[in-house]
């Protein structure tokens, strides 16, 4: 890109203006080429390819790649493991989204005031967000072991804690807790920014009218922060659907299939059992779920959200 190319002090006219527009277009195309090619090669193409793979019985171990039509999908939706996986994914996503949203809102409300040391607490709640997921999960693996620090602490009060990560009834709950503490700080700062933008005059007016703190929150604060609530819901849902590290590290989808969320199930089928065709079919299902949820939340946003920023 030559410097001062076509530098003309006076505004160009006619043919030279068209030449300038052409140069601008060429420059624009050149500047966006990297991300556009990237989106095609590492976004669009993989999607088309797993679409094709999902129609094939592809198993490198057996050395075969045969077209089988929709067989993989028929097999998938008929398998009890996959049905369980869908149910577990639903429970996990709902659990994470609800707890993360409520706890984040609670923490943001507590931190939304002028007090000495408030920044320290904000940093504390936010710290796990910057910690590597593998490190966070590893530490909780120690803490939640049957004779780990948590249960040893509970024993002081005569409480026999469960084997958090290895008990079919507690494993999913435990993973949700680990995910909650890892990610809630991010939603908290989003809510904190939103709360600080609520005009205090409105809240004062509500107070003078005798509205209780809860009534003020419901009638004044919440409607004003709905754009942020929406954003938090979308980000948390997509994040929860992509969950991988804590499952792979702590439970391997178990015990049984108690924590076998779809993103982990895909990895297990494709890269452990080497059934890439079936794995691709799971990938298509995961993609469709992400797509539908994102589109659904965007259209919901139009009806529900107070003020589009």
């Amino acid at each position, binding site marked *: 890109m030559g410097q001062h190319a076509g530098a003309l002090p006076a505004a160009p006219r006619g043919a030279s203006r068209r030449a300038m527009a052409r140069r601008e277009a060429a420059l624009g195309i050149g500047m966006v080429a990297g991300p556009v090619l*990237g989106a095609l090669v590492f976004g669009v193409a993989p999607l088309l390819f797993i679409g094709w793979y999902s129609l094939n019985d592809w198993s490198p171990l057996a050395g075969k790649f045969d077209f089988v039509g929709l067989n993989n999908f028929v097999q998938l939706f008929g398998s009890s493991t996959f049905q369980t996986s869908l149910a577990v994914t639903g429970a996990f996503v709902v659990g994470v989204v609800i707890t993360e949203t409520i706890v984040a809102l609670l923490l943001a409300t507590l931190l*939304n005031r002028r007090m000495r040391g408030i920044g320290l607490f904000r940093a504390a709640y936010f710290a796990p967000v910057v910690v590597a*997921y593998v490190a966070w999960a590893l530490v909780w693996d120690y*803490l939640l072991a049957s004779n780990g620090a948590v249960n*040893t602490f509970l024993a002081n009060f005569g409480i026999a804690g469960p084997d958090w990560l290895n008990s079919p009834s507690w494993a999913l709950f435990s993973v949700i807790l680990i995910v909650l503490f890892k990610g809630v700080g*991010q939603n908290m700062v989003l809510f904190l*920014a939103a709360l600080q933008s609520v005009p205090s005059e409105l809240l004062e007016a509500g107070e003078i009218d005798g509205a209780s703190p809860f009534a003020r929150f419901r009638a004044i604060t919440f409607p004003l922060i709905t754009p942020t609530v929406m954003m938090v819901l979308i980000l948390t849902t997509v994040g*929860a659907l992509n969950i991988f590290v804590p499952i*792979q590290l702590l439970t391997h989808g178990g015990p049984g299939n108690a924590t076998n969320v779809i993103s982990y199930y895909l990895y297990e089928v494709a890269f452990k059992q080497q059934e890439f065709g079936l794995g691709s079919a799971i*990938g298509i299902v995961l993609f469709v779920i992400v797509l539908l949820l994102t589109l659904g939340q965007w259209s919901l946003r139009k009806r529900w959200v107070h003020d589009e920023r």
Partner: protein
Amino acid sequence: MSADVITRPAPRRSVWKTRKFLGPLALYLALVVLAIPFVYPLLWMVLSTFKPIAEIYGASNLFPNQWTLDALGKIFTVNPLLPQYWNSLYTSVVITAITVVFSAMAGYAFARLRFPHVNKVFFLVLSTMFLPVEVTIIPIFRWTAELGLLNTHWPLIIPMAFGPKLAIAVFIFRQFFLSLPRELEEAAMLDGMNRFSIFARIVMPLSGAPTATVVILTFLNAFNMYIEPLVFIRSPELLTVGIGLTRYQDQYGDPLYNAQLGATSLTVLPVLLVFLFAQRQFVESLSRVGLKG
């Protein structure tokens, strides 16, 4: 998404009047108790590096009863942590550099330059933003194998530098450039400067905030990479640090708890230190866009 609001102090006269309901002391107490699940695991991780293996389980004490430096020697010998650390560091730097350069250029072009189908092309890039890595990794695995690049760092660097995360960075820069007043650029244009020089010499020097956001997001994301090395890398000395942390066993296959926790601390502490010193930047950056999963 007004990140600047975060830094603004809360209104002086708190309308919540907590004082009426619970004293400030009770509030501090609540904040401290709530902080336990966020802070205790990190403190426990660091301090348990100095515990004998027998003290890791069956105890809830934070500080070691018996301090030992046994683990320190094993951190770098049981598993090649130093090469792994280097792998994570250099791949993250390369990915971050590629991302910043390409996303800033594209963000500027999408915000300011006119070329055919500009909006459709932008939508194409943006639509890949939420694509889960679990979905794209199977084809990328196959291409990598066909190119003979398994067990190298190429499949870690290129797909992450040019994939869906780049789309997020493009979006961040475009939004920022759209918010910049056009007058400066128009003045420079009248002086005869071409568009690319205007971008490189006038606009970029004003773009510290989105650049910091993209750098922090991309670097954290790359440094914490997990499923890619798990799938693409076999040799221990080519692994990145995240997977390396799971490889702490003695020659009989028994886990070396304290060495693992030491290695984990060494991975986490530098990031946490940078976070504490640049807290505002981190909070603003990560509150602007999602970095989850």
